[in-house]
Protein backbone atom coordinates (compact mmCIF):
# COMPACT_ATOMS: atom_id res chain seq x y z
CA UNK A 1 0.00 0.00 0.00
CA UNK A 2 2.84 2.37 0.77
CA UNK A 3 5.04 1.48 -2.18
CA UNK A 4 2.39 0.85 -4.83
CA UNK A 5 1.22 3.63 -7.13
CA UNK A 6 -2.30 2.53 -7.95
CA UNK A 7 -4.84 3.50 -5.25
CA UNK A 8 -7.10 0.56 -6.12
CA UNK A 9 -4.28 -1.92 -5.56
CA UNK A 10 -3.53 -0.20 -2.28
CA UNK A 11 -7.15 -0.55 -1.17
CA UNK A 12 -7.13 -4.25 -2.08
CA UNK A 13 -4.01 -4.87 -0.02
CA UNK A 14 -5.59 -2.84 2.78
CA UNK A 15 -8.59 -5.21 2.76
CA UNK A 16 -6.18 -8.15 2.85
CA UNK A 17 -4.40 -6.77 5.90
CA UNK A 18 -7.70 -5.97 7.67
CA UNK A 19 -8.89 -9.53 7.15
CA UNK A 20 -5.53 -10.72 8.45
CA UNK A 21 -5.99 -8.64 11.60
CA UNK A 22 -9.46 -10.16 11.98
CA UNK A 23 -7.84 -13.59 11.84
CA UNK A 24 -5.45 -12.52 14.58
CA UNK A 25 -8.47 -11.43 16.66
CA UNK A 26 -9.88 -14.94 16.25
CA UNK A 27 -6.58 -16.39 17.39
CA UNK A 28 -6.78 -14.13 20.46
CA UNK A 29 -10.29 -15.48 21.23
CA UNK A 30 -11.93 -12.10 20.51
CA UNK A 31 -14.50 -13.53 18.11
CA UNK A 32 -16.97 -10.67 18.36
CA UNK A 33 -14.29 -8.12 17.51
CA UNK A 34 -13.20 -10.23 14.52
CA UNK A 35 -16.74 -10.21 13.16
CA UNK A 36 -16.99 -6.47 13.85
CA UNK A 37 -13.69 -5.89 12.07
CA UNK A 38 -14.83 -7.73 8.95
CA UNK A 39 -18.22 -6.01 8.91
CA UNK A 40 -17.16 -2.44 9.66
CA UNK A 41 -13.68 -2.18 8.19
CA UNK A 42 -13.54 -4.61 5.30
CA UNK A 43 -17.24 -4.20 4.58
CA UNK A 44 -18.23 -0.59 5.08
CA UNK A 45 -15.07 1.50 5.30
CA UNK A 46 -13.19 -0.03 2.39
CA UNK A 47 -16.26 -0.03 0.17
CA UNK A 48 -16.53 3.69 0.93
CA UNK A 49 -12.87 4.15 0.04
CA UNK A 50 -13.20 2.27 -3.24
CA UNK A 51 -16.32 4.22 -4.08
CA UNK A 52 -14.51 7.51 -3.55
CA UNK A 53 -11.53 6.29 -5.60
CA UNK A 54 -13.92 5.49 -8.42
CA UNK A 55 -15.79 8.78 -8.01
CA UNK A 56 -12.72 11.00 -8.02
CA UNK A 57 -11.03 9.00 -10.79
CA UNK A 58 -7.56 9.49 -9.34
CA UNK A 59 -4.94 8.54 -11.86
CA UNK A 60 -1.63 6.86 -11.16
CA UNK A 61 0.89 9.44 -10.10
CA UNK A 62 4.52 9.57 -9.18
CA UNK A 63 5.60 9.63 -5.59
CA UNK A 64 6.47 12.79 -3.76
CA UNK A 65 10.10 13.33 -3.06
CA UNK A 66 10.14 13.61 0.74
CA UNK A 67 11.58 16.63 2.47
CA UNK A 68 14.36 16.62 5.00
CA UNK A 69 11.97 16.87 7.94
CA UNK A 70 9.97 13.89 6.66
CA UNK A 71 13.08 11.77 6.28
CA UNK A 72 14.23 12.72 9.78
CA UNK A 73 10.82 11.90 11.31
CA UNK A 74 10.62 8.56 9.50
CA UNK A 75 14.13 7.56 10.50
CA UNK A 76 13.61 8.52 14.15
CA UNK A 77 10.28 6.68 14.38
CA UNK A 78 11.55 3.50 12.76
CA UNK A 79 14.59 3.62 15.02
CA UNK A 80 12.43 4.03 18.13
CA UNK A 81 10.20 1.14 17.12
CA UNK A 82 13.20 -1.06 16.41
CA UNK A 83 14.58 -0.15 19.82
CA UNK A 84 11.29 -1.23 21.40
CA UNK A 85 11.38 -4.55 19.54
CA UNK A 86 14.94 -5.22 20.65
CA UNK A 87 14.08 -4.36 24.25
CA UNK A 88 11.06 -6.63 24.08
CA UNK A 89 12.71 -9.62 22.44
CA UNK A 90 15.85 -9.31 24.49
CA UNK A 91 14.07 -10.03 27.77
CA UNK A 92 11.35 -12.63 27.20
CA UNK A 93 10.77 -13.01 30.92
CA UNK A 94 9.54 -9.40 31.09
CA UNK A 95 6.16 -10.41 29.69
CA UNK A 96 5.29 -14.06 30.34
CA UNK A 97 2.81 -15.99 28.29
CA UNK A 98 -0.82 -14.99 28.69
CA UNK A 99 -2.97 -17.42 30.59
CA UNK A 100 -6.73 -17.62 30.55
CA UNK A 101 -8.50 -17.67 33.90
CA UNK A 102 -12.07 -18.64 34.66
CA UNK A 103 -14.43 -15.65 34.37
CA UNK A 104 -15.74 -14.01 37.53
CA UNK A 105 -19.30 -14.62 38.55
CA UNK A 106 -20.28 -11.00 39.18
CA UNK A 107 -17.79 -8.36 38.10
CA UNK A 108 -17.49 -5.12 40.02
CA UNK A 109 -15.22 -2.11 40.00
CA UNK A 110 -12.74 -3.74 42.37
CA UNK A 111 -12.74 -7.08 40.59
CA UNK A 112 -13.12 -6.26 36.89
CA UNK A 113 -14.66 -8.71 34.49
CA UNK A 114 -12.28 -11.33 33.23
CA UNK A 115 -11.54 -11.77 29.55
CA UNK A 116 -14.36 -13.89 28.17
CA UNK A 117 -15.30 -14.54 24.59
CA UNK A 118 -19.04 -14.06 24.70
CA UNK A 119 -20.86 -11.07 23.29
CA UNK A 120 -22.79 -10.43 26.51
CA UNK A 121 -19.56 -9.41 28.22
CA UNK A 122 -19.26 -6.51 25.78
CA UNK A 123 -22.83 -5.47 26.45
CA UNK A 124 -22.33 -5.70 30.19
CA UNK A 125 -19.24 -3.49 30.05
CA UNK A 126 -20.82 -1.04 27.61
CA UNK A 127 -23.88 -0.44 29.74
CA UNK A 128 -22.26 -0.33 33.17
CA UNK A 129 -18.65 0.79 33.34
CA UNK A 130 -18.48 2.51 29.96
CA UNK A 131 -21.91 4.08 29.91
CA UNK A 132 -20.67 7.66 29.41
CA UNK A 133 -18.20 6.79 26.58
CA UNK A 134 -20.95 4.76 24.97
CA UNK A 135 -23.30 7.74 24.93
CA UNK A 136 -20.48 10.01 23.77
CA UNK A 137 -19.95 7.61 20.86
CA UNK A 138 -23.58 8.01 19.92
CA UNK A 139 -23.20 11.79 20.06
CA UNK A 140 -20.06 11.55 17.92
CA UNK A 141 -21.89 9.56 15.28
CA UNK A 142 -24.68 12.13 15.25
CA UNK A 143 -22.18 14.99 14.86
CA UNK A 144 -20.43 13.12 12.04
CA UNK A 145 -23.73 12.52 10.27
CA UNK A 146 -24.78 16.16 10.47
CA UNK A 147 -21.32 17.26 9.39
CA UNK A 148 -21.39 15.04 6.32
CA UNK A 149 -24.81 16.33 5.35
CA UNK A 150 -23.62 19.93 5.66
CA UNK A 151 -20.41 19.16 3.75
CA UNK A 152 -22.17 17.37 0.94
CA UNK A 153 -24.81 20.03 0.48
CA UNK A 154 -24.29 22.27 -2.51
CA UNK A 155 -24.63 25.90 -1.56
CA UNK A 156 -26.21 27.60 -4.56
CA UNK A 157 -25.78 31.30 -5.37
CA UNK A 158 -23.19 31.78 -2.69
CA UNK A 159 -19.66 32.89 -3.29
CA UNK A 160 -17.32 31.39 -0.73
Amino acid at each position, binding site marked *: *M*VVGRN*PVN*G*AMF*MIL*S*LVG*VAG*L*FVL*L*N*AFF*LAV*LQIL*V*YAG*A*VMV*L*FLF*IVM*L*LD*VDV*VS*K*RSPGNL*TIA*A*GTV*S*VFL*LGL*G*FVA*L*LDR*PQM*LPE*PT*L*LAPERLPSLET*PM*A*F*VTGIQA*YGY*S*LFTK*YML*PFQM*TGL*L*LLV*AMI*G*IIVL*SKRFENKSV
Partner: protein
Amino acid sequence: MTLHSVILVAGILFITGFLGVLLRRNTLIVLMSVELMLNAVNLAFVGFSRYNNTMDGAVFVFFIITVAAAEVAVGLAILVALFRRRQTVMLDTINQLKD
Protein backbone atom coordinates in the same frame (compact mmCIF):
# COMPACT_ATOMS: atom_id res chain seq x y z
CA MET B 1 0.89 -17.36 19.96
CA THR B 2 2.54 -15.09 22.48
CA LEU B 3 2.08 -11.48 23.38
CA HIS B 4 5.42 -10.70 21.76
CA SER B 5 4.31 -11.77 18.33
CA VAL B 6 1.10 -9.75 18.66
CA ILE B 7 3.03 -6.62 19.65
CA LEU B 8 5.49 -7.26 16.82
CA VAL B 9 2.75 -7.49 14.19
CA ALA B 10 0.98 -4.44 15.62
CA GLY B 11 4.19 -2.42 15.55
CA ILE B 12 4.93 -3.41 11.96
CA LEU B 13 1.39 -2.47 10.92
CA PHE B 14 1.68 0.85 12.74
CA ILE B 15 5.01 1.75 11.16
CA THR B 16 3.66 0.82 7.73
CA GLY B 17 0.76 3.21 8.22
CA PHE B 18 3.07 5.90 9.58
CA LEU B 19 5.39 5.69 6.58
CA GLY B 20 2.35 5.80 4.33
CA VAL B 21 1.22 9.03 5.97
CA LEU B 22 4.68 10.49 5.62
CA LEU B 23 5.57 9.42 2.11
CA ARG B 24 2.42 9.42 0.00
CA ARG B 25 0.95 12.48 -1.66
CA ASN B 26 -2.47 11.11 -2.49
CA THR B 27 -4.88 12.11 0.26
CA LEU B 28 -6.92 8.91 -0.14
CA ILE B 29 -3.87 6.77 0.53
CA VAL B 30 -2.98 8.94 3.51
CA LEU B 31 -6.45 8.38 4.99
CA MET B 32 -6.11 4.63 4.40
CA SER B 33 -2.75 4.69 6.20
CA VAL B 34 -4.36 6.42 9.18
CA GLU B 35 -6.91 3.60 9.24
CA LEU B 36 -4.08 1.07 9.21
CA MET B 37 -2.48 2.78 12.22
CA LEU B 38 -5.76 2.70 14.14
CA ASN B 39 -6.08 -0.97 13.29
CA ALA B 40 -2.61 -1.71 14.62
CA VAL B 41 -3.57 -0.04 17.88
CA ASN B 42 -6.71 -2.20 17.97
CA LEU B 43 -4.59 -5.31 17.62
CA ALA B 44 -2.30 -4.24 20.45
CA PHE B 45 -5.34 -3.46 22.61
CA VAL B 46 -6.80 -6.92 22.13
CA GLY B 47 -3.44 -8.55 22.74
CA PHE B 48 -2.89 -6.72 26.01
CA SER B 49 -6.49 -7.27 27.04
CA ARG B 50 -6.05 -10.99 26.58
CA TYR B 51 -2.74 -10.83 28.40
CA ASN B 52 -4.13 -8.93 31.41
CA ASN B 53 -7.25 -11.10 31.41
CA THR B 54 -9.57 -8.09 31.54
CA MET B 55 -12.38 -6.99 29.27
CA ASP B 56 -11.48 -3.29 29.15
CA GLY B 57 -9.13 -3.26 26.17
CA ALA B 58 -11.48 -5.34 24.06
CA VAL B 59 -14.33 -2.95 24.87
CA PHE B 60 -12.17 0.03 23.98
CA VAL B 61 -11.54 -1.47 20.54
CA PHE B 62 -15.27 -1.11 20.02
CA PHE B 63 -15.03 2.65 20.56
CA ILE B 64 -11.97 2.94 18.32
CA ILE B 65 -13.75 1.17 15.48
CA THR B 66 -16.67 3.59 15.83
CA VAL B 67 -14.40 6.64 15.84
CA ALA B 68 -12.50 5.30 12.83
CA ALA B 69 -15.69 4.78 10.86
CA ALA B 70 -16.90 8.31 11.67
CA GLU B 71 -13.49 9.72 10.79
CA VAL B 72 -13.44 7.99 7.41
CA ALA B 73 -16.93 9.24 6.58
CA VAL B 74 -16.13 12.85 7.47
CA GLY B 75 -12.70 12.74 5.85
CA LEU B 76 -14.04 11.39 2.58
CA ALA B 77 -16.83 13.99 2.58
CA ILE B 78 -14.22 16.74 3.02
CA LEU B 79 -12.17 15.14 0.26
CA VAL B 80 -15.10 15.12 -2.16
CA ALA B 81 -15.87 18.76 -1.35
CA LEU B 82 -12.21 19.62 -1.91
CA PHE B 83 -12.09 17.76 -5.20
CA ARG B 84 -15.21 19.56 -6.36
CA ARG B 85 -13.49 22.89 -5.82
CA ARG B 86 -9.85 22.23 -6.67
CA GLN B 87 -10.06 19.23 -9.02
CA THR B 88 -7.18 17.53 -7.20
CA VAL B 89 -6.54 15.44 -4.12
CA MET B 90 -2.76 15.68 -4.18
CA LEU B 91 -1.28 16.99 -0.97
CA ASP B 92 1.47 19.16 -2.46
CA THR B 93 -0.96 21.13 -4.60
CA ILE B 94 -3.17 21.96 -1.63
CA ASN B 95 -1.05 24.70 -0.13
CA GLN B 96 -3.32 27.70 -0.21
CA LEU B 97 -2.98 28.37 3.52
CA LYS B 98 0.80 28.25 3.28
CA ASP B 99 1.23 31.58 1.51
